[in-house]
């Protein structure tokens, strides 16, 4: 038999690399994580019918295709100036709640949470769900698999397919659900609420009940005082599917609130000579370099951001958890490790909202689509992706063929903030040109993992995971050391 060794390689240029730049004194000056750039995607779309976008854009990424599907459908609604009927809108939000539930479950239990559940110093091979199962028992693994199953099954019933739904179109949905399907969705949603409560109990017992972990969350090591961004409904409650984007400052004061089609008044993108990545920042504050504080336009868009910008959660169980969160951390909360806690509160909210929508009397209405009749022009759609605010902006000719496409994806919002966190983690282990390599990869991994960055092209059998590669460069840009794991 032929055996070929395939080295772990990145699939997109620059994908999955961390660069650390030192200053003259050998201390950390800058650090950043390269995430894949959607090179050529906008160009690929131009000339195609706008109604293809909900199924095309969900091919950008293997991690949150549902988010792209929804943002694209909403942008296409706006292009045609059409409003989906109530049942169409509610089906979309129901699908989206089930997706959020499964996505947050996957992140917390499979990769992010094990940093806590196993401890930051556990060997890397154990800091995953297998380590958690060995420590806490098989039952937790079965629950996680079941949680993914109920989420994916609900997406499939409403969206026509698992993972890559295809039923959201300009003006609503292509199909309604039957009463039998509704009952199945409700049953799964009720299980999801129980699971959400279980997840938060586990977090309270295992993480908040452990002084070492609580100190890690409350401490300065992973803390930055930045601006925060997230969608809120008319009552200023967290909403994943719809609303206006609210932005607060490091002291919690309101910076502004904008409708989707106003996003270019609020967000600008910084280009740095050393990276092809764009760094979005708040236009009205300005770019002041890689620094936090009220003078710097760097913002964060994550579960923690959404809790920080809102007045709470729209469902009762999640609201009670939100109140405990604020009582412990204050508001706004700045610790990046608190993103994990915020994620679990959102997970419970998603499950509760799932049930609310599943028992809504309108949800089985056959009236799920308003046919677009206006001449298409231009539109913006915004949803919250699990990992941050997701903006799709399209312009078309009068036939509905795309002439311009601009996407600001969830992870991109956090490029600058993640760079701050990686830099801070690196600073603790790199001083005056001396690099403590032991533990550096672990700490850096914990720093960006909290943000749940979507490096969505890593959806393959081989290498299957994008290896972490950290390059350290001196003040002149010369490569001093490369660490790989």
């Amino acid at each position, binding site marked *: 038999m032929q055996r*070929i060794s395939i080295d772990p390689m990145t699939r997109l240029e620059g994908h999955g690399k961390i660069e650390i730049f030192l200053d003259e004194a050998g201390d950390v000056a800058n650090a950043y994580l390269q995430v894949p750039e959607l090179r050529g995607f906008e160009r690929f779309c131009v000339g195609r019918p706008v109604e293809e976008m909900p199924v095309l854009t969900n091919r950008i990424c293997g991690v949150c295709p549902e988010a792209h599907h929804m943002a694209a459908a909403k942008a296409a609604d706006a292009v045609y100036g059409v409003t989906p009927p109530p049942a169409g809108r509610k089906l979309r939000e129901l699908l989206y709640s089930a997706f959020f539930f499964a996505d947050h479950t996957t992140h917390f239990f499979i990769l992010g949470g094990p940093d806590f559940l196993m401890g930051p110093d556990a060997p890397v091979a154990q800091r995953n769900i297998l380590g958690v199962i060995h420590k806490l028992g098989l039952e937790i693994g079965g629950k996680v*698999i079941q949680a993914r199953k109920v989420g994916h099954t609900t997406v499939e019933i409403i969206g026509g397919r698992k993972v890559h739904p295809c039923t959201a179109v300009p003006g609503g949905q292509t199909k309604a659900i039957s009463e039998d399907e509704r009952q199945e969705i409700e049953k799964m949603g009720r299980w999801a609420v129980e699971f959400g409560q279980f997840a938060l109990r586990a977090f309270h017992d295992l993480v908040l009940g452990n002084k070492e972990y609580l100190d890690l969350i409350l401490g300065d090591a992973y803390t930055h005082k930045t601006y925060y961004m997230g969608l809120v409904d008319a009552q200023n409650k967290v909403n994943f599917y719809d609303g206006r984007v609210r932005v607060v400052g490091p002291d919690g004061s309101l910076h502004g609130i904008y409708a989707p089609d106003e996003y270019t008044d609020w967000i600008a993108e910084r280009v740095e000579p050393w990276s092809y990545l764009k760094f979005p920042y708040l236009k009205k504050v300005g770019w002041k370099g890689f620094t936090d504080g009220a003078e710097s336009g760097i913002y964060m868009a994550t579960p923690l951001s959404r809790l920080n910008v809102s007045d709470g959660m729209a469902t009762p169980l999640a609201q009670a958890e939100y109140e405990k969160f604020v009582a412990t951390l204050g508001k706004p909360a700045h610790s990046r490790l608190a993103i994990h806690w915020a994620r679990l509160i959102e997970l419970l909210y998603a499950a509760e909202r799932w049930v609310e929508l599943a028992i809504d009397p309108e949800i089985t209405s056959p009236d799920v689509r308003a046919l677009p009749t206006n001449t298409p022009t231009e539109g913006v759609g915004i949803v919250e992706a699990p990992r941050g605010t997701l903006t799709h902006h399209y312009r078309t000719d009068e036939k509905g063929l795309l002439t311009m496409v601009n996407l600001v994806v969830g992870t991109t919002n956090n490029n600058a903030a993640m760079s701050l966190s990686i830099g801070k983690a690196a600073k603790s282990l790199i001083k005056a040109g001396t690099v403590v390599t032991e533990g550096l990869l672990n700490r850096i991994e914990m720093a960006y993992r909290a943000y749940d960055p979507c490096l969505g092209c890593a959806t393959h059998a081989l290498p299957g995971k994008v*290896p972490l590669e950290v390059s350290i460069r001196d003040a002149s840009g010369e490569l001093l050391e490369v660490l790989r794991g």
Partner: protein
Amino acid sequence: MADPRPAFPPLPAGEGRGEGKRIAPGSAAPTTLVIGLGNPILGDDGVGWRVAEAVSAELYDPDVDVLCLAVGGMTLMERLAGYRRALIVDAVVSGAPPGTVHDLPADDMHRVMPHHTASSHDLSLATALDLGRELGAELPAEIRIVGVEASPAFEFGEALSAPVADAVPEALARVRAWLEGDWR
């Protein structure tokens, strides 16, 4: 719903498994699975789909499911559950000339997988398979991967580069040989 077990197999065999498209009609419980993996709009990354579509076009066997998927470790593992043997056709970048066709058993995967990862959101397939087995999933006893060496720069587009397009017949022949091995 209160009892989380048994969670596997995630779906009854042969029922609604087609995430991308279930392009070969299977019987109630097919035991063999061929997956074309990759992103169909990312140039050479779509080669797995092209090969799977070619398999489907020439094959009618109720015991074989053919799927086109764009999913990673955990979801891929969940899709494999319930089959006796599986073959995955995927694009790879290993430094070999584009169009080179690799053939490897999945039990080799741990050796070539990194531990630390820059993708925070999924497990490697190797770890996901370990997890599934630990939880009692009925995962295929045999999983093989046919890898087609892609050009290193992936760009959005529906076309394969010339050397990769030329390699589709060779990859198809490998899949055919693997399928026929079972028939003998």
